[in-house]
């Protein structure tokens, strides 16, 4: 599209490929990153490890919100409901005698099971009404939890089952749990988007009517994505509960989670895997440098997000991709006209 010196495409064979570089690099890069962050507790200072741990919690949320809004077009401002439910499911299983770390997959499953029937109510609404209805549901979930005395009501409760670990062991295990969950979420999102499901998502993101008329199962795809996003935010809530480890309704169900995941995706760039990662990095740089100034980091972050939404809706990664044509984690296909001497791109991205 951007290449105006396009040769006669009939003369050149077209090359369809995912990426301009070999997938081996992606694999090697992933292994290196995985090894680094897994070894981080032994390499980095402990203060850094706890910051990284919080970073991964937000990264899980932002990635899930991006899948929901950036790909499936559902703007939810109620994902904090699943963060809270994930935290409380973990608390519940821990009270029943399960190790909190073992409880993570069960909490995730519980959130997925709760998310499924909710879609039948929510999908009656669209756009802004959908958004506020997700908030109503998150609010209702919090109010219901408040009435349960076993879970500590409004005051909250300490997560049991962690006292047998020494503080440093607990820090390490918490960090590793958040990192592994974040890694699983990112890899899963990557493969979802590369799959047939990802193709359906991209098509309905770009033009829903056209996708429907081409036979894409739009509603069931959206339902599946909503359940996955609910489960993912539940996972974030679960590791959040372990890292706190005090579970309190006002914190677990805080609207700030929704704000942070939304702003991080918007600033980084919605509809890309890399966007939320960049958004989360910016958020943490901002938060760490303004940590003595109360809520100013959130004010600035929100204001930047508003500006970006209006003037640069593809976000920072979108800007980088548009100018350099580089993709770190390609999920679509690109078509190039190939010849022996040179390769010229026809389309930036067939996704």
């Amino acid at each position: 599209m951007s290449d105006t010196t396009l040769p006669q495409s009939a003369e050149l064979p077209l090359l369809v490929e995912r990426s301009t570089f070999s997938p081996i690099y992606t694999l090697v890069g992933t292994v290196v990153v995985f090894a680094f962050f897994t070894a981080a507790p032994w390499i980095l200072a402990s203060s850094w490890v706890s910051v990284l741990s919080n970073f991964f919690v937000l990264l899980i949320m932002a990635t899930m919100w991006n899948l929901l809004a950036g790909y499936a077009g559902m703007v939810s401002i109620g994902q904090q409901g699943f963060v809270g439910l994930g935290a409380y499911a973990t608390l519940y299983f821990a009270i029943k005698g399960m190790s909190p770390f073992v409880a993570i997959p069960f909490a995730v499953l519980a959130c997925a099971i709760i998310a499924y029937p909710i879609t039948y109510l929510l999908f009656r609404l669209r756009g802004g009404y959908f958004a506020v209805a997700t908030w109503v549901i998150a609010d209702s979930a919090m109010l219901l939890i408040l009435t349960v005395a076993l879970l500590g009501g409004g005051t909250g409760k300490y997560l049991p089952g962690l006292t047998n670990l020494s503080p440093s062991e607990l820090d390490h295990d918490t960090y590793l749990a958040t990192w592994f969950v974040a890694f699983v979420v990112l890899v899963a999102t990557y493969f979802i988007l590369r799959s047939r499901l990802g193709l359906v998502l991209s098509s309905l993101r770009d033009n829903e009517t056209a996708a429907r008329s081409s036979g894409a199962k739009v509603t069931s795809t959206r339902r599946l994505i909503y359940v996955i996003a609910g489960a993912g935010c539940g996972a974030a809530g679960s590791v959040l509960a372990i890292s706190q480890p005090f579970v309190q309704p006002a914190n677990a169900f805080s609207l700030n989670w929704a704000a942070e995941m939304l702003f991080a995706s918007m600033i980084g760039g919605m509809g890309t895997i890399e966007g939320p990662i960049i958004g989360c990095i910016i958020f943490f740089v901002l938060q760490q440098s303004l940590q003595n100034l109360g809520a100013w980091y959130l004010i600035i972050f929100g204001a930047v997000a508003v500006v970006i939404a209006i003037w640069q809706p593809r976000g920072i990664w979108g800007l980088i991709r548009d100018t350099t044509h580089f993709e770190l984690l390609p999920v679509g296909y690109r078509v190039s006209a190939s010849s022996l001497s040179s390769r010229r791109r026809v389309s930036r991205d067939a996704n």
Partner: protein
Amino acid sequence: MTWANILIQGALVGGFYALFACGLSLMFGVMKVINLAHGDIAVVAAYSAVFLVPKLHVAQLWAFLVVVPLFALIGYVVQRTLLQKAIDRDPFTTLLVTFGLSVVIENLLLEIYSANGQSVNIGELVAKSWQVNSVIYVSDVSLVVLGVAVLVLGALQLFLSRTSSGRLIRAVSDDREAAQLCGANYKHVFGVAAAIAFATVALAGIAFGISTEFDPTAGGINLLYAFEAVVIGGIGSLWGTLVGGILLGVAQQFGAHFNLEYQTLAGNALFLIVLAVRPQGLFGRRVSLNE
């Protein structure tokens, strides 16, 4: 007698919710915009009544005389600048922008005025009430608020159906392109609609500040109540919004009768039931939902 009390108190609160909701309803009707910062604008209005109005040597009782026109002006300006830019992109952007504004406003208020509770001080008037019988008390303030809500809704209805500006607004809301072809400047019409919406929500915010103590975080829950009133009553129907607000208020009082913790939950439950059984709301048309 307690049931009668639940109904009366619920209806009184409902008038307040309807006052809150009519701006939301208007902005959605005309611009297809859900303003997620709606509740926070009301809170800003309440803060202006407490902190700005006394500086002008006006009693807080008369704060609405200053704050309502001010917010109408702010509404017009915000619509013509920021919101119009977002609308020009797509509905998706509008949602993100208003949500961003909501978070920014809430946290700015927290930074400036702290999380301490405030209230609009109107002297002894706030405590006055009217005793119906041994069980039922009707507070004067909530009665006035209900009256104001009915008045505002009625005036809005008259304005939209009888005046030429009102007809222009309806024309733009029905078919923007056609209205534009007939020479309507839709951006100006959007600005006027936003000005009305901001003025009514400022009024609601002051009423809110008079009747309860508030803090910067109160915006979110107010948006939820207003939204629930709109959906229960039916999107696009002003009197439906009043009925929706009253039903919401009654449901909340009913829940609170059993346990104070159930107050909001009962309202949410009514909202979800209406959504499940009659998604177009009690007075709404089916088509309006899927736009």
